[in-house]
């Protein structure tokens, strides 16, 4: 019952203290308490059945009350139970739908359009890409745009939680000075570095403590609307093993808890949580069916190479992880993409289940231009941004090609945020 504090922080336990020790000793969680027959609980940890019964009913009532309160807080125009009040049409039309309110613009017009206006509060959004592709750059822009007044921003401050390199304030200042979005605002309305807060965390334990205990307090006190965690994979890779099954299972549990913490922060404070993630290479194995294997070895299903079994196998293959991950990782759903360029976001399916949306930044491989004689010139790398999935709208694939060269006056498609001056250079201490 130790999780009762987390599930129902306000539950009054005075009448049931004598039950707690025994329940705890037998590892009865709150979910066990509700789903098991009270008689069985009473038998398992020797306790008076009537008391357990009463505890169950009280806990259930408290949980139902909790669900009701949360629903009321978020959607005030919902019909309330238990009183089946009829809602007048006026009441409904006057209440603004929460989604009409602010979103955080990414300052990239195509991505904003793909997201329906920007990032929605109450969700975890992942920004994933290879190293030095510009993830940090991209989220730094959001630290400022969150301060813009609605609907482009939230009108609130932002927090940057870093696990690798500290916040690059020089770059932020540069952005503030030269970005066209901010240039045309009055100095009084412009975002300011005063409202960007940063904290660094180097290990998983500190990270957990900061996110669970210090972050909610800071959000309330400093009126924060956007939290950036850069990056989520760094501490996990250092401390969790990913090669044994037991290690993976442990990591999956830890990721689940992290996801829950971040979701709670996002929902309860109506904030946007942006998380950056690293990638690992994807190995698309060339596997071969051993058709010519000796009769003793081949199992009946593989012995004959008739067309129907091939089709059946191909149908089965559509559900294989290798194939399906082309469509939810952001790499691989374009047939032209070369096999050696495919990447996987780190931390696997366990983390992918926790996020609401994923934005992928990709870099083309290096190209060289032949200039004549013996001279090759490195062509500027093209970077693309894409929304892989998002819960607030089905996104047809929208790619925004980011050109490296400075474009001069923005032509409406590419903002100068993506100007090459702002790209990370070697002087920056970005994690390679």
């Amino acid at each position: 019952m130790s999780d009762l504090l987390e599930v129902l922080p306000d539950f009054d336990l005075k009448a049931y203290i004598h039950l707690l020790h025994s329940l705890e000793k037998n590892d009865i969680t709150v979910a066990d308490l509700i789903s098991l027959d009270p008689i069985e609980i009473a038998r398992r940890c020797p306790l008076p059945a009537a008391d357990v019964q009463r505890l169950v009913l009280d806990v259930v009532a408290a949980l139902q009350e909790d669900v009701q309160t949360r629903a009321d807080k978020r959607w005030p125009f919902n019909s309330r139970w238990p009183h089946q009040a009829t809602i007048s049409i006026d009441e409904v039309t006057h209440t603004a739908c929460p989604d009409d309110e602010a979103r955080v613009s990414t300052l990239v017009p195509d991505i904003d359009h793909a997201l329906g206006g920007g990032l929605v509060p109450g969700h975890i959004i992942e920004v994933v890409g290879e190293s030095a592709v510009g993830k940090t750059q991209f989220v730094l822009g959001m630290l400022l745009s969150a301060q813009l007044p609605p609907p482009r921003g939230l009108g609130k401050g932002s927090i940057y939680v870093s696990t690798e390199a500290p916040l690059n304030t020089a770059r932020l200042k540069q952005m503030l000075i030269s970005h066209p979005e901010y240039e045309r605002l009055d100095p009084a309305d412009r975002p300011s570095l005063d409202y960007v807060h940063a904290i660094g965390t180097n290990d998983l334990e500190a990270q957990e403590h900061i996110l669970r205990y210090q972050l909610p307090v800071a959000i309330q006190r400093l009126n924060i609307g956007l939290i950036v965690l850069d990056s989520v994979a760094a501490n996990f890779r250092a401390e969790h093993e990913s090669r044994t099954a037991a290690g993976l299972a442990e990591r999956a549990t830890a990721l689940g808890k992290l996801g829950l913490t971040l979701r709670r922060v996002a929902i309860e404070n109506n904030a946007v949580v942006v998380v950056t993630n690293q990638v690992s290479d994807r190995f698309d194995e060339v596997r071969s069916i051993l058709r010519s294997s000796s009769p003793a070895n081949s199992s009946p299903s593989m012995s004959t190479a008739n067309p129907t079994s091939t089709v059946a196998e191909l149908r089965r293959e559509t559900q294989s992880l290798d194939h399906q991950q082309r469509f939810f990782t952001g790499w691989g759903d374009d047939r032209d993409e070369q096999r050696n360029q495919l990447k996987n976001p780190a931390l696997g399916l366990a983390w992918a289940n926790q996020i609401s949306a994923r934005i992928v930044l990709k870099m083309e491989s290096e190209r060289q231009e032949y200039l004549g004689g013996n001279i090759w010139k490195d062509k500027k790398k093209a970077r693309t941004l894409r929304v892989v999935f998002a819960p607030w709208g089905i996104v047809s694939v929208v790619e925004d090609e980011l050109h490296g060269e400075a474009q001069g006056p923005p032509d409406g498609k590419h903002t100068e945020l993506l100007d090459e001056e702002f790209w990370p250079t070697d002087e920056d201490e970005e994690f390679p």
Partner: protein
Amino acid sequence: MAVPPVIDLTLSQPAQARQAPSFHRLPTVSASEALQELQDGNSRSVSTGLTSLDRLLSGAGGTSSGGLERGKITELWGPAGAGKSAIAIQSAVNALKEGSTVVWVDCATALSDQRIQEGITTLAPKDSHGASNGLLAEFKHVTAATLSHLLAIVLYPPPNFMPSGIGLLVVDDLNVLMDLDYPRYQFAVSSKTEQQKWQASRRYAVLSSLVSGLNKLAVIKGLAVVVITGCSTRMRPDTGLGAALVPGIGGVEWDGGVWNRLVVFRDFSGRFVGVQKCQGRSLISREEVGEIGRVVGFEVADDGTLRERQASRLADDAAAQVKPRASPVKPRKRVFDEVADSESEDVDEYGWAETDEDAIAAEGLIEGAQAATTSTEPG
């Protein structure tokens, strides 16, 4: 004659009975009323928005009206971004259009209100603005913060939790909530104490209670239940194929309690939804992990409505796709009859029998010597 739905009463929890006796009283209907209802053509199911899918779900016999049947649970699973929520939203809008109420329970990712509104404005009759808002008021959106919260409202439904006109209940992202409280692999596989074994079995026991509770709600209130889950992976070492995606929620009791199971996934040619189980019968065998069943292709428009695509391109695409090939099946390391059983060994490996002929002749002299010469002479 109308056949009343089969009701499962196996799980009766004494606690519940004590708490709310009215909950267990089944709605009694006289035969003439039942016949009247049948003749009125009251819809017994909620349409998914894709006619082929509705038809596939009605099964071979065509006895039911297809779509998401009331009184039953339909499971929608698939990877992120495949289109599960899109189908569920479409079904919710269809239910609202019919005049039913919809309850949507968020377990992890919050449903975007905008999507529901868009769905209503596009599909609802184009009268006044007020009518759409009236429909929106019939859509009840609730969040279950933990598994305990979800269990509290499903196993012990509060009185008036579901108004009488309810047609559809959607539970979104159930696997995230389950994995938090009862992770799949809790302990190291090797030694487990009695207590740990009990804890490991709790996941499936809770899933069993949950599916029974949902079925009971579905039958008694006459509503269709949709459970949306994500994926996890399962290795397929026997066939030599790689890992496959499987539903995040499994187990014998859960699978048994689900009436329809649909897999939603994407492929190069677009989105697909496959029917893996319908009318309570599984269309794929248990061993064929990764089999998708009959498929319907669909696409989602910008405003959220679903449209069918000429499906079954999946098979045609097979030729165009990179052909995945399985890695070689590893032969068994030990063939059963390889283990030498000296009783039946035909070949005398070391030739002892030959050299020991003198010894054998003398054997009879030794008391107690067993003359069981097990190796026969080489032929």
